[in-house]
């Protein structure tokens, strides 16, 4: 394969024609003669471009006669024909407000207002310098319309990969590109009860923000152009190209909030310390560069749980303290309850009440477990006092997980000749180690998972997730004749490894280890692209023809953990099998079978192991014709064939009609698809899920499993979609305003989702398979339902002079609605229950409005942002959590050319989501819903950032 690539590379370079190029340099200033950083500079009709640096300087390899297009939000786009090696430009504010985008069109000279579909351009470099957000997900959640990212808590690996969605669709229905090349997905499939459950998202947080120049978000279906996943839209992350400048950011902050540390006390937690360094070098003298970014982050955990309100002890625990564990275990319930009740009148009252009610002795012993919300727990109260403990000692960790990460990113381009042939490469590696806690294993659990023989007060198990992400892309682009050719290969892997800490294998009793390697999974993807395009200036008013091909291979692996992480042991220390007599199994004092495996996260079993591959190839044609100055018509067609589920053909037609220079109408219709992820086809595991507070060993069975066949669940196939959008763009130059309004309908058929939990029923074969998997319940991935999404996005940008400074205002609003339809059934029951439907329909805000104001004057830069997050519903009970407005405020002062300080706050007013209803908080541990939230529940975050720019 490598040999073939080299031959192709040599052919490619050899056939390139020669046109003399030169290094063009210059400075971009604004209309007040101040340097303008971040200006996009693109050679018209090509994908070659750069951005101005902090001082407005730029350099680019271009030939005399090339047209350079300068664009920047809030400024009129300028086109300058190269003549000589120096081009200085002064941008005029408030005229066109456009910026050239590389996404959504193979014609690389199109601006945001020109495109037939809505595209947002997020100036990440600017935002990261002034805003409080430090990860890609955080940043987009507060800036991008219709993008919603919901941080999770107490949900295993999902704690570290915030599921994000565009236009209310699933996290897996957004395609992510880096420099226009497909980015691999995370290896994690979300199987806990969270937003995005059952989906495989792209791990945006693996990319250091400081390596990003800007992010383009295409808010429209684009599968006919980019292939699978581009159902809701496409996110293109454009990496920095700056050279000869070291940009160093030191960012530190913490949550100073009324609920920090302890719900009812307030304090400081979630301390964050982050160092980012970005530096670039020239490569050669023809505009080549290599840009490096390093990022180190240490983020502390936050905790918003209150004192543990659940029962903590039973009478059995009192007896173990008084008599010793083994002795108490030997006592019959009658003796134990009678003995304990004699220790204190409050316990005697419990005993007497139980006897009067006709309760069994075991019920009396565990009677704190029957406590109703607001009720008393006399057994726990007594025993806490005896042990000198309080309910605060049993708090869970509900909030932001602890995270430590190191990230590295590289971006380079090396001109190979004077013809514009460029060898390019980018990639990176990141390693994140997160530590998130699960449910407190209180002694009061009657199935023995609290393992009080080893830990008299139970324990709070932790899941340590090591997320390693690697990527490398290399390609060559240039001209062959009059055709732009881009040949590239992109490789990426993502892996999760789980270590379960401070936990036990309860079946091993007091001899248990406290830490287990629970296995993990990895996903690898290699994509080879050939893209060819040509712009015919003389056809119509311009006609761009693009075509290309893609070959992609994917691999998904699931690795088992160590034996003790998944096994149940019998009383002799042997692994429990089907032949183990019931009498040899380990039972709790209450006669319940003690669950095996590492508590909170049983490791993956050898039988769960997976190593599966698939490949696909695709071909596309993309036509874009300016039939007249006013009338743009585009059409795209794409065929893809997957080795597992077959082929798919998709198309897209879009148009833009300019009614005037300042007003245009645009519309698009397309079909799309999303290939089922390998994870969704093959993932299988047994994990502990808490349903209504009760722990359940629940198996997720592979789609190709025998059980799935028995239940007649068909093999996964692609989701299909139909997208329709209609909108307009308007510019009001006199008032420096730009408006885009776009409505859309996205119908997705045969969506892949995780089914509800099914129980074995009466079929002996099914019962046996359930038993083999040690699962009381099972769920699957299935093409099980359709969704219909509709909405409208409104973006208004405004810029004006105010005093000596410049005021920018931006409103980005989205209103969306997603409805689930045609839910299929298994075993006579719909595969989605109300809860699962709730996650899809109403767990994310249907309305979001962002008003951002920035004011620049002299050395000051102020930012005030208000984001309205619409109401959401709790999938658990349908309760509505009301709309909230979050306020961000920051001020930046430039002490010198190379040093600036930013201080500010996210959620300045310390706003929290509505609290969960009484009785639904899990004993005051989930004061705020763990299922959904509009903006997390960390409260006010105050930060300071020092930015050094050294040359």
């Amino acid at each position, binding site marked *: 394969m490598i040999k073939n690539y080299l031959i192709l590379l040599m052919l490619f370079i050899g056939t390139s024609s020669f046109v003399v190029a030169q290094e063009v340099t210059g400075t971009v200033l604004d209309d007040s003669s101040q340097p303008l950083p971040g200006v996009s500079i693109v050679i018209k009709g090509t994908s070659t471009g750069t951005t101005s640096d902090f001082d407005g300087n730029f350099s680019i390899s271009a030939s005399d006669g090339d047209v350079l297009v300068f664009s920047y939000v809030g400024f009129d786009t300028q086109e300058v024909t190269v003549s000589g090696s120096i081009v200085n430009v002064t941008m005029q504010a408030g005229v066109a407000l456009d910026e050239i985008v590389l996404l959504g069109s193979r014609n690389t000279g199109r601006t945001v207002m020109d495109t037939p579909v809505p595209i947002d351009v997020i100036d990440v470099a600017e935002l990261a310098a002034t805003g409080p957000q430090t990860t890609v997900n955080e940043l987009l959640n507060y800036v991008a319309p219709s993008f919603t990212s919901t941080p999770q808590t107490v949900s295993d690996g999902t704690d570290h990969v915030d599921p994000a969605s565009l236009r209310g669709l699933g996290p897996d229905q957004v395609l992510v590109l880096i420099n226009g090349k497909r980015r691999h997905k995370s290896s994690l499939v979300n199987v806990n009860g969270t937003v995005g459950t059952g989906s495989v998202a792209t791990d945006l947080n693996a990319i250091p923000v400081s390596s990003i120049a800007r992010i383009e978000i295409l808010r429209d279906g684009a599968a006919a152009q980019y292939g699978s996943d581009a159902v809701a839209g496409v996110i293109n992350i454009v990496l920095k190209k700056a050279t*000869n400048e*070291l940009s*160093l950011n*030191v960012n530190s902050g913490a949550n100073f909030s009324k609920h920090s540390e302890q719900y009812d006390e307030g304090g400081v937690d979630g*301390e964050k*310390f982050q*160092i980012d360094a970005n530096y670039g070098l020239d490569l050669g003298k023809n505009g080549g560069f290599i840009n490096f970014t390093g990022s*180190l982050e*240490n983020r502390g955990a936050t905790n918003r749980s209150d004192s543990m309100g659940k029962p903590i002890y039973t009478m059995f625990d009192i007896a173990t*303290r*008084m*008599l*010793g564990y083994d*002795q*108490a275990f*030997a*006592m*019959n*319930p*009658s*003796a134990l*309850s*009678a*003995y304990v009740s*004699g220790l204190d009148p409050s316990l005697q009252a419990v005993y007497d009440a139980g*006897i009067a009610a*006709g*309760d*069994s*002795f*075991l019920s009396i012993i565990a009677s704190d477990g029957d406590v109703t919300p607001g009720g008393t727990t006399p057994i726990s109260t007594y025993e806490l006092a*005896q*042990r*000198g*403990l309080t309910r605060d*000692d*049993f708090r869970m960790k509900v909030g932001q997980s*602890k995270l*430590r990460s190191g990230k590295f990113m590289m971006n380079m381009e090396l001109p190979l000749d004077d013809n514009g042939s460029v060898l390019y490469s980018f990639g990176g590696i990141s390693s994140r180690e997160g*530590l998130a806690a699960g449910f407190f294993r209180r002694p009061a659990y009657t199935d023995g998972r609290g393992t009080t023989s080893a*830990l*008299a*007060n*139970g*324990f*709070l198990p*932790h899941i340590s997730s090591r997320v390693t992400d690697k990527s490398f892309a290399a390609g060559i682009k240039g001209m062959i004749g009059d055709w732009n050719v881009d040949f590239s290969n992109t490789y990426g892997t993502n892996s999760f490894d789980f270590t379960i*800490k*401070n936990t036990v294998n309860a079946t091993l009793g007091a001899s248990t280890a406290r830490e287990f390697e629970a296995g993990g999974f990895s996903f690898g993807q290699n994509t080879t692209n050939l893209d060819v395009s040509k712009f015919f200036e003389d056809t119509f008013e311009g006609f761009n023809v693009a075509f290309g091909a893609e070959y992609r291979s994917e691999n998904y692996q699931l690795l088992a953990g160590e034996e003790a992480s998944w096994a149940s042991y019998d009383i002799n220390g042997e692994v429990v099998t089907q032949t183990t007599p019931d009498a040899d199994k380990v039972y709790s004092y209450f006669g319940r079978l003690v669950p095996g495996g590492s508590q909170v996260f049983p490791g993956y079993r050898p039988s769960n192991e997976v190593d599966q591959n698939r490949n696909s190839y695709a071909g596309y044609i993309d036509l874009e014709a300016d039939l007249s100055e006013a009338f743009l018509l585009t059409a795209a067609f794409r065929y893809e064939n997957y080795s597992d589920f077959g082929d798919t053909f998709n198309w897209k037609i879009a148009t833009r009609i300019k009614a005037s220079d300042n007003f245009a109408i645009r519309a698009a219709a397309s079909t799309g698809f999303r290939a089922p992820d390998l994870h969704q086809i093959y993932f299988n595991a047994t994990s502990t899920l808490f349903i209504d507070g009760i722990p359940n060993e629940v198996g997720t069975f592979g789609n190709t499993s025998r059980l799935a066949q028995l239940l007649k669940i068909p093999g996964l196939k692609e989701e299909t979609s139909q997208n329709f959008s209609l909108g307009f763009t308007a510019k009001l130059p006199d008032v420096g305003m730009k408006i885009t309004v776009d409505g859309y309908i996205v119908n997705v058929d045969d969506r892949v989702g995780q089914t509800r939990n099914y129980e074995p029923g009466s079929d002996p074969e099914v019962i046996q398979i359930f038993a083999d998997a040690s699962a009381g319940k099972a769920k699957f991935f299935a093409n099980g339902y359709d969704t219909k999404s509709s909405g409208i996005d409104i973006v208004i940008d405004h810029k004006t002079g105010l005093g000596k400074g410049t005021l920018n205002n931006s409103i980005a609003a989205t209103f969306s609605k997603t409805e689930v339809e045609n839910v299929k059934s298994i075993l006579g029951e719909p595969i989605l229950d109300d809860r699962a439907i709730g996650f899809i329909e109403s767990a994310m805000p249907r309305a979001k409005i962002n008003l951002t104001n920035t004011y620049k004057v002299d050395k000051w830069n102020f930012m005030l942002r208000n984001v309205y997050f619409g109401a959401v519903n709790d999938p658990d009970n349908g309760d509505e959590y009301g709309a909230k407005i979050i306020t961000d405020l920051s001020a930046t002062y430039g002490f010198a050319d*190379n040093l600036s300080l930013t201080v500010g706050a996210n959620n300045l007013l310390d706003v929290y989501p509505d609290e969960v209803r009484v009785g639904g908080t899990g004993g005051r541990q989930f004061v705020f819903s763990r299922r959904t939230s509009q903006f997390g529940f960390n409260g006010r975050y105050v930060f300071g950032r020092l930015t*050094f720019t*050294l*040359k």
Partner: protein
Amino acid sequence: MKNLKYIYKLLLVLPLIFMVSCDDSDDIVDVFTNTTTTTENTVFIETDATSEVGILLSDLSPQTITVGVNNASDTDVTVGFNVTKDGTAAVEGVDYLLADAVIPADETFGSSDITFLTNGTFEITISSSSLSDLEIVNNKVIFLVPTQVTFTLDWDDSWYDYDIFLFDGIEVGFSDIYSNGIPAGLTLLGLSNGVTNFESFTAIPPVGTNYLYLEDYWNDNASIPVVLTVDAGGDVQVFNITVDMDKFVLSIETTIGEDGFPVYTFTGL
């Protein structure tokens, strides 16, 4: 590159700050009990019962009382009992017979048998132990000793020999039990097999429907009148029967009343 020395200093200082920020000593904090545990030793009645509901006896055979200690002693432990009947002290030798239990040295369990002489609700608790440092647990074992039913068959002419049998079911048309044996699928719960003109036995019919079978031993089929008297704790019912063949003559429907004791309903067949 200007200000290079500042970069070097920064590059030295920042990792140090980062490392300090990475302190993870408080990541995981176990909950430890602050008080010292005082281990006690107890003696208690061992019972399989998981609830307060008493054990309903189906006969009056001796019942074993098992006692246990948490930690074995190096000497024998003698355990004494307190017995109540219907909430008041029972009289040994009148209401019951029970000796002290002994837990042998180095053992954790011992036992003694109790025999009930009357019916009623008996609660047995531990009253004493021979080791003073043993904590006596006030748990108990409860026996519901039900009323026995006495079935009496009486007829005039001793020439004839009739016997009665109590079964937990019925087989209509069955005959000659001495030749054919107990009907298949049925369990014998009690019988009289005398040779005079007076037959009697006592039993505790279990929950469910039970049947009384009358056997004409010599197969006289003489249509002799007999008197069947049923005495359930003083509740006496009389059934006049003509013995013209072997047959089932009475059904006994046993249910459990609110007090936990059996309630009998007798119906002639």
